[in-house]
């Protein structure tokens, strides 16, 4: 006989109570695991995405709210757009380079794929693109694709593509960039405007400034001259992080409430168990168990709840993240967040932390009941019943 054997025999004697207590802590730990998995590389991922924008300022249609502005990063297509007259006004400002582009969508094999209408030479210079295969030719009948799209749909140079009912030839494939640029089809801006019947409208204007210290001045000047809104890359990051933060706060609250409830579950279970086993505690004391022994036996019991609940919670949390991921990524915004492994389904660091936390929380919950048990007077315990 060992202490751990005694603990396990005692803890499993009331099956349903045992299961409910385990379930309580498992739910708490599962939500914690989900939270930590989601939280992991999220912030740095957002910053990386915005750096790839390559622009200090982005011109958007007037009156857009923060969530709409985020579509600059996510690639979501919104109906509002900027007319050419405003593009020209912005481009006319000294000290800045204005790069207008149009974001639309098409379907390849029934999957949505972004189509970006660009001014070909200007954009290539701005993005520092290089060609991987074929040639960089954009005209009324030719398009190029990012590396990721070519790989995903097994496209080769010379392939015929149908975009919005019109035939195109794939003239070239860009070198891999490791960002969203890999995941679009690029088309001449005028061709795209015609194909999608948007007149002379563009979605955004990316703006590079010559003198970064004057960025606020440029921003004001653009808004004075043209009927548009301007957002800086820093503001975009802030907006995204604010949304991410609110999601995390909600999850944190859920995890905190679940774990707190689990703690009370453990305390309740232990206090009840001690009450029921008063006589047995007395027997153990008569057999020579001192206060420390009684205390540690009951503390082990609650720690064991933490151990089992932790294991089940971690497995549950990992499964949940895995199962829920496709549903979450149906949303454009979260698809963007999920795009570069920012949601890590299995992370040893997270698992270790969650396990430790589970053991700690369960042990802390067990201290009070175990202390109560250890303070029982042997005679009182023996005479019970």
């Amino acid at each position, binding site marked *: 006989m060992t202490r751990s*054997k005694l603990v396990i025999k005692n803890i499993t004697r009331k099956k349903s109570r045992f299961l409910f207590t385990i379930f309580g802590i498992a739910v708490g730990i599962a939500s914690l695991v989900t939270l930590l998995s989601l939280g992991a590389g999220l912030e740095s991922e957002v910053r990386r995405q915005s750096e790839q924008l390559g622009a200090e300022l982005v011109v958007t249609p007037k009156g857009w709210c923060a969530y709409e502005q985020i579509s600059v990063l996510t690639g979501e297509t919104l109906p509002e757009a900027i007319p050419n007259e405003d593009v020209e006004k912005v481009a006319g400002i000294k000290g800045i380079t204005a790069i207008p582009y149009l974001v639309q969508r098409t379907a390849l094999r029934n999957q949505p794929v972004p189509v970006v209408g660009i001014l070909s030479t200007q954009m290539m210079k701005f993005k520092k693109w290089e060609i991987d295969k074929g040639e960089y030719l954009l005209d009324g009948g030719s398009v190029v694709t990012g590396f990721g799209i070519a790989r995903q749909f097994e496209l080769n140079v010379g392939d015929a593509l149908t975009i919005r009912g019109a035939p195109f030839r794939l003239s070239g494939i860009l070198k891999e960039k490791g960002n969203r640029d890999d995941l679009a089809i690029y088309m001449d801006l005028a061709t795209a405007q015609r194909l999608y019947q948007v007149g002379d409208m563009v979605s955004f204007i990316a703006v590079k400034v010559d003198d970064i210290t004057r960025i606020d001045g440029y921003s004001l000047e653009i808004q004075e001259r043209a009927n548009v809104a301007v957002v800086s890359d820093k503001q975009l990051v802030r907006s995204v992080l604010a949304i991410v933060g609110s999601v995390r706060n909600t999850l944190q609250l859920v995890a905190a409430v679940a774990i707190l409830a689990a703690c009370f579950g453990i305390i309740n279970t232990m206090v009840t168990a001690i009450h029921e086993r008063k006589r047995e505690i007395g*027997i153990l004391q008569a057999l020579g168990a001192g206060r420390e*022994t009684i205390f540690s036996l009951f503390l082990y019991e609650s720690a064991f709840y933490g151990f089992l609940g932790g294991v089940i919670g971690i497995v549950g949390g990992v499964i949940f993240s895995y199962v829920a991921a496709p549903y979450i990524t149906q949303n454009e915004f979260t698809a963007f967040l999920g795009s570069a492994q920012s949601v890590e389904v299995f992370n040893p660091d997270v698992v270790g932390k969650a396990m430790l936390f589970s053991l700690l929380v369960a042990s802390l919950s067990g201290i009070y009941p175990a202390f109560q048990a250890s303070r029982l007077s042997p005679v009182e315990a023996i005479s019970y019943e």
Partner: protein
Amino acid sequence: MNDLIIRTEKLTKIYEDGYRTVALQDIDLTIARGSLSCIMGPSGHGKSTLLHLIGGLDRPTSGRVYLEDMDLTSVGSSKLAVLRCRRIGFVFQFFNLLPVLTVLENVEVSMMLAGVPQKEQRERAIEILRLVGLEEKCHVKPNQLSGGQRQRVAIARAMANNPDILLMDEPTGNLDSKSEQELLTHIHKVNQNGKTIVIVTHSQMVAAVAQRIFLIRDGRLENS
């Protein structure tokens, strides 16, 4: 054989929860090593209280208990636990056994508390259970045993750490006379092996084998 193992001095226990109960008053007694003694008297007159004080399970309001030369009343609670573990064995009237454990494991538990290694626990538990005639019940849970069998397991467990003293509180109180006789045979055997035994009992059959009888009435020791 004038060697004393237990001695009490003006042992008094007063309960004061709500109203005052004088459970024991000024008990002076001595118990010789290797003897078999009985404590008798009406219910509620302080017999169990006396047994608990002798065994270091409870503390007196005043007076002293000596185990050989050691004053138990001045010993700390963890030291007292160690003494109960190694030198004293208890058997109560009922609910002696831990219900989740098998007969064998119940005996092992007391050795576990004494820090005996697992392998040795098992060997010794089997050996002791053989002595009380229960070796074939090793893997049975207590609720599948008869009252007499349970008390025999309790005795086996109390003997596991080879204590000097065995204290029993109405061990045959729940048994029919055949089981009582059987249990008494085992108790007698244990006593023959040199253990000091103190039994609280109402049974004349038990009293008949005792070398000494203490009569407790209203918390006081009557001369007998």
